[in-house]
């Protein structure tokens, strides 16, 4: 088993050596969502056609990123189903179907799952009832089943886990239910919990004084999107969610650490190496759970190992990934809440931008300038491609009373939709955040993007368009109408030596090839 774990670590790290496989949620540990495959290019993408379509078994939104291992796709289906598919034909090889408790409620999001992790011959999935389950990759049989948290209190897992060496890392959802967030690591072989990092520090811990009285107990800070990993530094980077209650901060004066932050944790122990808080004392629900992308960048003339994040709060950030030093922050979408960032990266918040009973109009909307869906980074163009939601909203402040397992939100929003909002794919110079090109979409998207070494960017739209853009220029080169709304991220893999592109749309997983 040990050999298998090491093998997977190596392959995820050096996925360029295994370009036909897609071994972790974001494609590699650096979370580039970049395929090194080159067969599909701007010159031939117009000939891309569906190879097969897999229809999921239950109703619900399909948000999975398939993993691909030697021609087999491992996908998740709503609500908590794992399926192995033959990558050549789309035929099902096995399914693991979890019986969910009848009294399970997801609070603040749909009954979705975004994908699995894999290590050797074991597949790992987080469940809506907040368990982490290890499955035999050949049969779908359960190897172990660990309770991560009690679902009755609004804890839930939708994110794909991340395998790091001999551990499986999983985040937790529940930011609208007043949970106290954490990030967990489990022994991949036994399912025994190896460490837990609380995103809301308890009494005596550093940062606890950013909470008032008992507010830390319901402080939120969920970890609901998969993070990234730097094997050289042995650090895990993971974004944290909003403080609770979301839109009424009266009961929690202070910065509310480590909500709306990026935390860098020792992969072996879960110890906090550094943190950076993007939005102190957030009251707009701007989780910082967006994908932390690890890149090498030249910042002010100096080569740096950085972590880049296009944040939900509409700013693009570069941080030194060794120590969390703020290097750069610049808006990449319309925002009306901050005058800018100071030299430490702390926002200079404009007056009268907090939610009110009557409603306060602010850009971006609570769904943010981007959200959980993935950006992509091409080491060839050095651009970061982001699916952008340029949309304002009236933010309402309401009451928030904590009752376990119910909404603990304290407000809401009404978005400015229709022609008052727009969606875009924006290509940013990753070192400066400057706009290189943009491609307009009919509406603010819920789909992420994939970049390829062939020179393409693939993305989806709410109206079902799956499309390819020229990675260098943003020119539209190909489009297929899938017939369902798209809330997913594309990936690429090979079967029989041929490059394929996979994406979920509507109730289907579509796979395309030349």
């Amino acid at each position, binding site marked *: 088993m040990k050999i298998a774990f090491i093998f997977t670590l190596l392959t995820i790290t050096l996925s360029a050596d295994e370009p036909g496989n897609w071994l972790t949620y974001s494609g590699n540990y650096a979370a580039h969502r970049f395929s090194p495959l080159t067969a599909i290019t701007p010159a031939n993408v117009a000939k891309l056609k569906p190879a097969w379509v897999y229809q999921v078994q239950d109703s619900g939104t399909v948000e999975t990123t398939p993993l691909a291992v030697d021609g087999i796709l491992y996908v998740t289906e709503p609500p908590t189903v794992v399926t192995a598919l033959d990558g050549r034909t789309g035929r099902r090889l096995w399914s693991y179907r979890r019986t969910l408790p009848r009294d399970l409620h997801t609070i603040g999001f749909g009954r979705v799952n975004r994908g699995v992790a894999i290590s050797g011959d074991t597949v790992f999935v987080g469940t809506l009832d907040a368990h982490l389950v290890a499955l035999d990759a050949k049969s779908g049989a359960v190897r172990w089943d660990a309770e991560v948290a009690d679902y009755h209190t609004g804890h839930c897992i939708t994110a794909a886990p991340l395998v790091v060496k001999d551990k499986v890392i999983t985040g937790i959802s529940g930011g609208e239910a007043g949970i106290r967030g954490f990030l967990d690591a489990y022994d991949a072989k036994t399912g025994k919990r190896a460490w837990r990092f609380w995103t809301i520090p308890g009494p005596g811990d550093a940062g606890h004084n950013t909470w008032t009285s008992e507010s830390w107990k319901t402080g939120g800070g969920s970890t609901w999107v998969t993070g990234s990993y730097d094997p050289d530094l042995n650090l895990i980077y993971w974004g944290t969610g909003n403080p609770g209650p*979301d839109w009424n901060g009266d009961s929690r004066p202070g910065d509310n650490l480590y909500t709306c932050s990026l935390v860098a944790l020792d992969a072996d122990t879960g110890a906090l190496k550094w943190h950076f808080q993007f939005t102190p004392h957030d009251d707009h629900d701007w989780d910082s759970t967006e994908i932390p992308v690890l890149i090498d960048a030249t910042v002010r003339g100096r080569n740096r190992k950085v972590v880049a994040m296009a944040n939900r709060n509409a700013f693009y950030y570069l941080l030194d990934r060794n120590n969390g030093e703020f290097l750069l922050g610049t808006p990449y979408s319309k925002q009306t809440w901050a005058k800018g960032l100071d030299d430490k990266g702390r926002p200079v918040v404009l007056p009268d931008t907090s939610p009110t009973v*009557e409603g306060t109009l602010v850009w971006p909307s609570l769904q943010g300038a981007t959200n959980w869906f993935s950006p992509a980074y091409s080491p060839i163009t050095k651009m970061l491609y982001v699916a952008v939601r340029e949309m304002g909203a009236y933010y309402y402040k309401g009451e928030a009373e904590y009752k376990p397992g119910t*909404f603990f939100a304290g407000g809401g929003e009404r978005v400015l939709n229709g022609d008052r909002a727009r969606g875009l794919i924006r290509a940013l110079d990753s070192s400066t955040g400057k706009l290189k090109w943009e491609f307009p979409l009919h509406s603010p998207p819920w789909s992420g993007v994939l970049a390829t070494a062939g020179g393409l960017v693939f993305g989806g739209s709410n109206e079902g368009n799956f*499309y390819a853009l020229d990675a260098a220029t943003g020119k539209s080169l190909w489009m297929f109408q899938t017939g369902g709304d798209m809330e997913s991220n594309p990936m690429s893999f090979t079967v029989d030596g041929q490059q394929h592109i996979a994406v979920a749309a509507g109730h289907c997983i579509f796979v395309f090839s030349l």
Partner: protein
Amino acid sequence: MKEPLKIWALFACIAAFGAESPFANLTPADLARGRRLFEAQCAVCHGIDGAGGSGANLAVTKFKRAADDAALVSVIREGIEQTAMPAAWWMSERESVQTAFYVRSLGRAQMAKVPGDAANGKAIFEGKGACASCHIVSGAGGSLGPDLTEIGARRSPAHFRAVLADPAAALPEDFLMVRIVPRSGAGPEIRGIRLNEDSFTIQIRDLSGGFMSFRKDQVNLTKQHGQTPMPSYRGKLNDTETGDLIAYLVSLRGEP
């Protein structure tokens, strides 16, 4: 409060519902809070006075979707599937009850009868006004404009009066006229109503009722916000005729 006396009387009336109602034990402060919540979060669709807009007219005594007060609270909390009515999941239980309490008050505060002869209005709709040439009511009529079979349940008399005088004043949110000119210069200019649109294509019904589909990169597309093919009836119908037509429209509730 705009009309304190009326609201107080109504409060007394609702408070008399007794322990069965979720409104039992509520106070005038709850009603005021419900009004603030309604005006901030519901009025955008239902109108500031609750008399309808893109959402249903709530200034009525009986709701189609909520048989009793508890059901009204549920509709607010859970929304209505397959409609634009969202679930106000962010409201606390108390806030949704307060909002429902205020919504219930809207119908009791506004029980004024609509003057006008609905039968004569129907004759104008089908005859002099030629409304039926573009609008379907109970299965009969033209299909260029929206189906009006249930329009009386969603719009107020004041809305009908305003739209008849100036049809562009209150267009449905998703209604859009477009002008399309092929870039090749090969075809004539086409005007129509948008049926669907995505990032790459647009589908329309032209003014003669034909379906057309275009790739957006092959045409020059102009979105004509605020335009409608519906004519103004200002000066075309006299006050009595307008009143009769409004009485007819108010009566259209999708019931036989």
